[in-house]
């Protein structure tokens, strides 16, 4: 199973409905989605995203493996390009036979996503696309090529 990447805002109801169908009848006790919604602040009309897919897929495969070791499944959908305020750009979910494993995993998964998934965010203000530098986090290992002297 792959990361689902959609152009523009996510159709939350359709994506969650599809994911629920995948575990229908499996006797799994927990389905824990996180839906990220673009907030209205600082006069933005939308957020916009760039994604580097090859590394995002590797990152996600590692998480699928971690989830599998705990008997769970992780799911993820993300937008590419512009996403207007009040719509969704990101959905993560964990499915598991047991509640406790899923609650722990969704927290770790979403936090690591924020820090290490190769996705770049921009604010759309007055028609301009401005990199959200102050809200961005250097990835693990950042600075390798920086001059040390």
């Amino acid at each position, binding site marked *: 199973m792959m990361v689902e990447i959609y152009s523009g805002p996510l159709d939350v109801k359709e994506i969650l409905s599809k994911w629920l169908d995948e575990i229908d009848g499996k006797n799994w006790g927990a389905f824990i989605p996180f839906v990220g919604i673009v907030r209205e602040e600082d006069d933005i009309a939308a957020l916009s995203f760039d994604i580097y897919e090859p590394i995002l897929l590797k990152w996600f495969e590692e998480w699928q493996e971690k989830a599998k070791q705990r008997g769970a499944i992780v799911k993820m959908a993300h937008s590419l390009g512009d996403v207007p305020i009040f719509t969704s750009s990101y959905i993560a979910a964990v499915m598991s036979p047991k509640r406790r494993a899923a609650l722990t995993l969704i927290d770790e998964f979403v936090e690591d996503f924020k820090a290490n*998934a190769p996705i*770049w*965010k921009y604010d759309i203000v007055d028609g301009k696309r401005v990199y959200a530098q102050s809200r961005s*986090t*250097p990835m693990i290992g950042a600075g*390798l090529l920086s001059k040390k002297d």
Partner: protein
Amino acid sequence: MVKIEFLGPIGKETIELDAKNLSDVASELNKDKNISIWLEKSAVALNDTIVNSLDLPLKDGDRISILPPVCGG
């Protein structure tokens, strides 16, 4: 020759360099101030795998990606 690609907001075209290892790449890229300001906070991937050592030998056709600070979601 190795290819260097600058991802996300760096906004610079891919370049090609002669380099034996990542230290050579670092020396070359740090000559350009518009690039070096990104390097201190950017991660580095070699052929789509994040790397953590400057000593890695490079071969012809290798692809190096510079990944600036991220913010998904």
